[in-house]
């Protein structure tokens, strides 16, 4: 019979937490637990206090914003190995978008409030968390800027003269 994986095992296998010290992974896993979601369930809800983030183990989630006229607008999509939620780390700790399960989702829920406390007491842990989330935020910001640019434009390959 195979060994049952612990939260720490999942975290140490994830590329997001790659390179983190063993005792930091131990601290992180103390704030984590596995959660299961059905399609349509919200992992994170816009406007609510941001006290958690998720490492997706299985399934797909959408980051969305709801517009009354058109319903949910999908802004990005994430799958296994990816992290959703970073508002927990930065004041005012309020979720700006929804994260909703598109399929059955298994994810590690990490309690941001618990982590913020641990990071305040251990600056090295705080630095490593901040470094990883800053990279994630930077990547999302670059992607968002490109989405805003409309890189597929109206200028087209096949009509090169605009004539």
């Amino acid at each position, binding site marked *: 019979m195979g060994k049952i994986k612990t939260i720490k095992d999942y975290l140490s296998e994830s590329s997001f937490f790659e390179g983190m010290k063993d005792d930091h992974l131990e601290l992180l896993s103390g704030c984590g637990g596995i959660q299961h979601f059905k399609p349509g369930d919200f992992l994170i809800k816009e406007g609510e206090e941001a006290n958690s983030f998720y490492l997706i183990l299985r399934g797909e989630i959408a980051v969305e914003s709801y517009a009354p006229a058109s319903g949910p607008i999908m802004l990005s999509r994430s799958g296994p190995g990816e992290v959703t939620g970073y508002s927990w780390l930065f004041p005012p700790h309020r979720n700006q978008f929804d994260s909703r399960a598109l399929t059955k989702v298994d994810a590690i829920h990490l309690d941001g409030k618990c982590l913020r406390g641990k990071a305040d007491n251990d600056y090295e842990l705080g630095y490593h968390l901040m470094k990883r989330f800053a990279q994630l935020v930077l990547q999302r910001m670059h992607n968002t800027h490109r989405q805003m640019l409309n*890189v597929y434009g109206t*200028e087209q390959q096949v*009509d090169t*003269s605009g004539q």
Partner: protein
Amino acid sequence: MTPAVNKKNPMLPFPCRVIETREEISGCLSLVLRSEDNAELSFMPGQFYMLYVFGHGEVPISVSGFSSETDRLVFTIMNVGSVTRALCTVQVGDTVGIRGPFGSTWPLEQAKGRDVLIIAGGLGLAPLRPVIYHLISHADDYGDITLLYGTRSTDTILFQDELAPWDKLDCMQVLVTVDSAGPDWTGHVGVVTELIDKAVFNPSQTTALTCGPEIMMRFTVHALLDQSLKSSDIFVSMERNMKCALGICGRCQYGPHFICKDGPVLRLDQVDHLFKVREV
């Protein structure tokens, strides 16, 4: 059959009959043309023809159909200007003038035995479709084929009815992304460069072909180089204002290249220094 191109006077348009029109997406039409005297209409994937709408003018349009079909040519045209507007209103039975084929081709020989990564943005999928057809019909000569396609929204996905059958082929994987979508969309959301991180490929065994607006190709090229692809294994299809299509008038000059003659398909190491120069 004799070739359609007029060797004596390549500036002279050759009359073709519109035999079919098909609206692909809003404002975008595919035209199927056949020569009025059954002349051979050949091209290699990546090449373009000059399409002449009498009374309106001429535009360069890449061929988007099968290169193995020599009795017809397919062009996919977005209504973005006066000539393309006129092209988008032609009817079956109308006559359109053509000159060509012109320009360089996608590197079908160089890519043999290697995986092929195709990255298309918006209407840039149209000039890549002939190469996809070729790769599928000669799948034994190539490794894995991956198509990464990005477009603005689910309403602007080109050749939508072909993407799913392509993805079902053993030799091919298709990933489509849009900038934003409603809840029914099951594909990816984000810019096409994000798909490069999700696609599995061996950089040393992969030839990459990309086509789309230049800004999209610039970001794509950066992402491919970040994945350790060599610039000599990356090919881009450039666009500039083409007029004569013969490398004479100089209107499509891009640094030392004439896009109509040396391009439109160029190896990245031929042009990467120009990518960094503004207003070239």
